């Protein structure tokens, strides 16, 4: 059987997405299953990402797998000048699967070509982070009951934010999505994604003001506006406080509306929102463990 990898969200079909949702629900009901007994999973973090690594390692532990790896390339042979190619070849001999994060874009795709074992991309620079997208989808499915007919408001940095791009691609596979983009012109959704939506006859609306239009939302997906994205610091100063979600803005929203955020947040969601029934971002992070158990089992063909 040909090995499977998960490098980009578009490597998965709609059937795969639905299977992951189903498996994640199973793991949520019964998180500890000995499906990876006697298997070794390599978690290769060439750049640190504590949140993602702990989530994956928790998932592997709950599946009774064993873990080898590193959490930062300064403790690996990379500092001696070893190429990614050689690291991956070597690890392929030891482990049954690789979960990797790397600062260079395309590194995960390349690793999947070099490796004889399955590779899961846990983030390659600003490119892809598919397990984040799948856990976002699981959070939507869980809170809205379906992935069809969802009105998603994406807020903040829509230009560089890889999570919003991947979520847009994946949700476009489902029935009748509506997208609303709220961003400063400097950080607007790139044309290639708008062209993609047009080609699929999917409705989208663009806004620069964060107003009560959010009353139509099923999901508000918040992202960070990052200072380093701006070439002109004055432009950043102008927009940095425009896109802050506060409790008082939630008055007219749908009772079922949920707020998602890939975390970490800085100031874009005011702490007074945390106690609101709309706040879902911490539960979303927990959903990540079940979703990653689902992804690993699916890729390894043990479920």
């Amino acid at each position: 059987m040909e090995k499977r990898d998960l490098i980009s969200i578009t490597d998965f079909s709609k059937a795969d997405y639905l299977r992951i949702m189903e498996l994640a629900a199973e793991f949520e009901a019964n998180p500890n299953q000995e499906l990876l007994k006697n298997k070794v999973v390599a978690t290769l973090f060439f750049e640190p990402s504590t949140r993602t690594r702990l989530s994956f390692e928790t998932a592997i532990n709950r599946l009774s797998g064993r873990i080898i790896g590193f959490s930062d390339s300064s403790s690996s042979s990379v500092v001696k000048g070893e190429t990614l190619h050689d690291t991956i070849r070597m690890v392929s001999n030891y482990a049954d699967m690789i979960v990797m994060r790397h600062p260079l874009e395309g590194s995960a795709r390349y690793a999947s070509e070099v490796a004889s074992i399955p590779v899961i991309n846990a983030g390659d620079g600003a490119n892809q982070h598919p397990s984040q997208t799948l856990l976002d989808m699981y959070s939507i499915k869980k809170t809205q009951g379906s992935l069809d007919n969802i009105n998603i408001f994406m807020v903040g940095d829509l230009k560089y934010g890889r999570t919003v791009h991947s979520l847009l691609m994946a949700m476009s596979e489902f029935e009748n999505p509506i997208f609303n983009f709220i961003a400063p012109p400097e950080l607007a959704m790139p044309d290639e994604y708008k062209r993609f939506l047009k080609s699929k006859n999917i409705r989208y609306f663009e806004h620069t003001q964060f107003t009560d239009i959010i009353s139509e939302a099923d999901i508000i997906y918040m992202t960070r506006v990052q200072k380093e994205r701006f070439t002109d610091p004055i432009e950043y100063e102008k927009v940095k406080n425009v896109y802050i979600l506060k409790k008082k803005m939630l008055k007219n929203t749908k009772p079922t509306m949920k707020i998602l955020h890939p975390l970490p947040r800085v100031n874009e969601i005011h702490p007074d929102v945390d106690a609101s029934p709309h706040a879902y971002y911490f539960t979303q992070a927990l959903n990540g463990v079940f979703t990653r158990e689902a992804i690993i089992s699916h890729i390894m063909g043990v479920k």
Partner: protein
Amino acid sequence: MDNRALQVSAIKEGTVIDHIPAERLFDVINILGLFNSLEMITFGTNLDSKQLGKKGIIKVANRFFQGEEIDKIALIAPHAKLNIIKDYEVIEKRVVETPSEIVSIVKCFNPKCITNHEKIKTRFSVVSNKPIELKCRYCEKITYENQIEIV
């Protein structure tokens, strides 16, 4: 064109590559490895062209370009035309066509792409022909026509 130009350009057998954007002339020479050729080659650049403004032209004796060579020409001179010459006559005119995949010819424009850090054959799918847009198999970023750099 005056008579003196015609004298230089006549070839008995070979290929004339016409309608090359003037600024791409030397790229075409490089990519086809013509600097190593022992055949008679003449080229001209900054010639007037209705279509391109200024164009370049290359005439190579005894060479008939095939598959991958034509792909390479298509990439940097998408409007190029190949005139195949036999016995001083043009026996065939070919318009180049951009292939659907480009392997190890072009450099990815993205400095953070893995292909610019390790020895990896670049691979692009051609997402648009005119103007050319190449999507990197690895970093998934688009290299646009004006960013194309030959490896």
